């Protein structure tokens, strides 16, 4: 048994570590000051794909990302961890894409790979938290979706069984292939690099695909293909409240608490 697996990935600015240097004095974003990382949940997605491959060893895992040319770093990372191959979708004509235009470009690229049995992706990216691209790629490929996946319970070349997280608990679902699965951070932790894969692949050339390579309708790409527009961006201006500075002494804290108790704020 063998199947063809695609894993979606995104290189993101590490918004978990935004320091003051990430903002310019004009209130815009200084992207170069932020380190670029493999989106964390996309690594959980890669892990689940590699677990499928372990059960059906002749399967192939191909990693797809869209971004600037330097995003090849994460394709390389995925290959060091066990993916078979991958490519970067990179073209100025993709720039300014919202989730709809992004999912369109990615779905064109995935369709170009021929028949695909399973698509994995992270639930959401830390630079936007929208969780939209996965379901949108599934719709564009006209295949079902399983979102919020937490555990792979079984897989064959016919179907997949997944435990997924829902607001009120968890549920186990089964779907026939092909299907797209988005994976949560609570899924099994991603494996590390293999030394022999690093040595073998460190000089590997990562292919870059342009818009022309994926036969899109060009008006559905980038800014022109994006229905959402940013009307304006306000840097956050804090209006100072009447702020009382309380000294860090037992006496001052006593009077703060007794004040709150007197005013029935603390019961």
């Amino acid at each position, binding site marked *: 048994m063998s199947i063809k697996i695609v894993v979606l990935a995104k290189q993101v600015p590490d*918004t*978990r570590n*935004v320091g003051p240097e*990430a*903002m310019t004095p004009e*209130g815009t*974003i200084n992207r170069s000051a932020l380190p670029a990382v493999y989106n964390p949940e996309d690594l959980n997605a890669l892990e689940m794909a590699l677990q499928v491959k372990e059960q059906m060893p002749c399967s192939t895992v191909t990693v797809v990302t869209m971004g600037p040319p330097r995003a090849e770093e994460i394709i390389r990372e995925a290959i060091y961890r066990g993916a078979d191959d991958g490519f970067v979708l990179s073209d100025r004509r993709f720039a300014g894409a*919202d*989730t*709809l235009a992004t999912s369109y470009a990615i779905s064109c690229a995935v369709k170009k790979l021929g028949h695909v049995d399973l698509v994995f992706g992270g639930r959401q990216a830390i*630079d*936007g*938290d929208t*969780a*939209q*691209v996965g*379901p*949108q790629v599934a*719709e564009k490929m006209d295949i*079902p*979706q399983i*979102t919020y996946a937490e555990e792979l319970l079984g897989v064959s070349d016919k179907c997949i069984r997944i435990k997924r*997280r*829902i*607001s009120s*608990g968890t*549920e186990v*679902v*089964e*779907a026939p292939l092909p*299907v797209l699965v988005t994976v949560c951070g609570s899924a099994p932790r991603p494996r590390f690099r293999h030394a022999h894969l690093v040595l073998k692949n460190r000089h590997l050339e990562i292919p870059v695909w342009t818009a022309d390579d994926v036969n899109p309708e060009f008006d559905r790409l980038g800014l022109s293909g*994006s*229905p*959402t*527009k*940013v*009307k*304006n*961006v*306000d*840097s*956050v201006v*804090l*209006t100072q*409240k009447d*702020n*009382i*500075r*309380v*000294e*860090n002494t*037992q006496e001052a*804290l*006593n009077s*703060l*608490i*007794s004040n709150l108790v007197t005013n029935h*704020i*603390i*019961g």
Partner: protein
Amino acid sequence: MNSILVYIEINESGRVADVSLELCSKGRRLADRLGGELEAIVAGNNVADLEQQLYPYGVDTILYANDPRLSPYRTLPHFSIVDGIIRERQPEVVLYGATSVGRDLAPRIASHLRCGLTADCTALEIGDHTDLKTGKEYHDILYQIRPAFGGNIVATIVSPETRPQMATVREGVMRKEIIDSNRKGKLISLDASKYLRAEDECLKVISRQIDPQGVDIKGASIIVAGGYGMGSKENFDMLYKFANMIGGEVGASRAAIDAGFCSNDRQIGQTGVTVRPKLYIACGISGAVQHRVGMEQSGQIISINTDPDAPINSIADYTIIGDVCEIIPRLMNAYQSCKK
């Protein structure tokens, strides 16, 4: 049609979810502003008291698809119904709760209809827009407002050209408001079979495990919240003692959860829950806008921080500068001596 459509979610007890009632309250205001109707779509199986639950919140029309195939929630059956109804009724705006259901369903619909969708909005308003490039003017469109990019900016997003304009909103962000408990509307029954396709049935739910009701930080009148500045899980655990003593619940910022100090059911902020307690004590929380939108409507805010310039201080009523691990025990002492 200037109508607003709200996707209604049914919770595990068979009732309309709070987030859906909150969206109806907001939807009512938007509909009044646009001079249109507020419609609610419900896809479920034998939902009890639907009319009594929804009309008081301002719903004019309930579109109800009642069919065993629609419960529990599965993406494709709900997708086919909601997508079909949007095509038939052409609402201006569609709102979804940013829950595991809404975040699964809404993007698939946006993709199919090729319309815009903004996730996790913290405010929705109606206003005008001029496209700077084309100079084209748009009247009375939906402003979808959300913090972005590490919380350093707040972006107003519009979808001027495509309809409907869609947004998801987290639970607790909008206020639930009964307009009139005797208000009446009309209910239209939908024939689910008219919308469902055979392939919508392909995914099977094998089993479901519903967690016992966890913490309810939304309902707490006092919240002691910890951030990355707590330094360690051990230090963070001190907050439970303090919260317990003063009758509060423990909350956390996303940074504290990412650092493993606390489980994510206590997360406060844009991607967690929004709270409005009487007292909010922020311990070692710097106060990025994503956190602030989830707590700034608290009655009183105390900020405990080593950094005098932390953004949280500017919305706090009281600020204590210093080591949180030293200050919390002092506050506990203060409380105990006050209660004697």
